[in-house]
């Protein structure tokens, strides 16, 4: 493929120095492909693409980075911050650090780890795990088939979605306008805050769903469960469904000063089937929680 956009290339010797350096125009697309090589991507500060352990081909506004077939080492890549990045790997792990304009990663069974990311991001894997830490961006979508999805300290101004079919989804310290988290065969755990104008959906067929929310949460929670039960540590009012909201077992009243906590409503041992709406606070955020077999828990953030 002819290199029409190649402005500079230098082959340098030494372990720590890149094999190839290419200057790219702002907003260039970069495609990174690997079969077995691990891929480590760092977002630099200049409009420059550098690669160690792989080759670069540039055609128009697109640069292609390849690891040699059969090679199983690690490619170290530094990309410009304005780039649009597409990474695909079969069994090699993909590790990224930094913010690019747009990021798409696909693996078959390689793990994906994104740290300090941002912008618009899509991460997909069949059998690998996905871990996202310290993300600040517009949107984030994670799809896994058999691997665990973990997110920690994530803030998204738009939509965040996280799905795994056969493994769990764990979201910690999440703040987003819209969240969709689901698993078919494992648990969904969400710990974060709900925006008053936000929409949130949590679903698991066979696993538990646990929401850990601030005690001051203002939300309207629509709960639907076939075989699972429901418990909440946050006091709410029932807007529809059974007459009495099922709540967690109240703590025993604290002694002293002649004042005791009023008794909470009794806890039903199990709700075999339930479809009801609970309002917390002013009921601003819209939340749906769907479970078939698993229990649903709403806990107060400590």
């Amino acid at each position, binding site marked *: 493929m002819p290199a029409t956009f190649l402005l500079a290339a230098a082959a340098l010797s030494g372990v720590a120095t890149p094999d190839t350096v290419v200057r790219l125009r702002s907003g260039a697309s970069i495609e990174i492909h690997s079969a077995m090589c691990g891929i480590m991507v760092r977002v630099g500060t200049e409009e420059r693409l550098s690669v160690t352990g792989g080759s670069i081909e540039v055609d128009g506004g697109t640069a292609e980075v390849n690891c040699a077939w059969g090679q199983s080492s690690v490619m170290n890549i530094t990309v410009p911050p304005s780039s649009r990045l597409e990474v695909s790997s079969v069994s090699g792990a993909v590790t990224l650090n930094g913010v690019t304009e747009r990021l798409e990663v696909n693996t078959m*069974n390689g793990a994906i780890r994104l740290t300090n990311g941002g912008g618009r991001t899509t991460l997909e894997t069949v059998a690998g795990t996905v871990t996202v830490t310290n993300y600040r961006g517009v949107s984030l979508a994670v799809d896994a*088939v*058999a691997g665990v999805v973990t997110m920690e300290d994530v803030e998204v101004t738009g939509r965040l979605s996280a799905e795994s079919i056969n493994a769990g989804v764990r979201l910690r310290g999440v703040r987003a306008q819209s969240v969709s988290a689901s698993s*078919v*065969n494992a648990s969904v755990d969400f710990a974060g805050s709900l925006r008053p104008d936000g929409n949130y959906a949590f679903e698991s*067929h066979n696993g538990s769903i646990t929401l850990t929310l601030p005690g001051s949460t203002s939300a309207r929670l629509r709960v639907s469960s076939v075989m699972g039960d429901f418990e909440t540590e946050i006091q709410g009012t029932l807007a529809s469904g059974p007459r009495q909201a099922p709540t967690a077992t109240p703590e025993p009243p604290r002694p002293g000063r002649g004042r005791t906590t009023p008794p909470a409503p009794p806890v039903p041992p199990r709700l075999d089937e339930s479809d009801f709406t609970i309002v917390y606070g002013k009921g601003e955020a819209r939340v749906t929680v769907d479970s078939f077999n698993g229990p649903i828990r709403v806990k107060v953030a400590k």
Partner: protein
Amino acid sequence: MATNHDDPIDPRLAEAIATLRDTPPSDDLWPEIAPRLAPRHPAGTLLLRWPTAIAAGLVIATASIGGTLLLLRGDAVAPAPSTAQASLATTANAVAAAHTPADQALQRAIGELEGRLALAEGSLDATTRDGIRASLDALDRAIADAAARQRATPDDARSAHYLTSALQKKLEVLRTLTRRTAIRT
């Protein structure tokens, strides 16, 4: 033979039709013919007397309950050599009970993609193949749960929704897997 009813009729033919008159037979023959006719049934009709019909009903009911119990017990489905084939059989059984045209259409699409996935399975490594197998099994259990639920509560819209959304989920996953494995191969 194809005919076009929009074509205007031939004027000569119309004239001939206008001359036709209905001519009844001179004698009514039916009273003589009727006593000679034995009752007839379409070919293949099985005539059952009361005791036989009751026994057949009991057999059908027993078979139906047994089949349902077999489906509801996920571990009762014998494993087949291919992920896609096993998955296809389980899903087909579950959805056959639903009889919803939309769900049947989803099932057909699922079957097609499972066939494609089965062809590509050999090129995948063991970790990926096992991950896919476990995930499709989980989806099949979800479909079986939802189908059983719908049979138990056929008038509950939520049950129908569970089944449809479980099938849609499996279709989405298969689309992703077939796309990904096609790229891989």
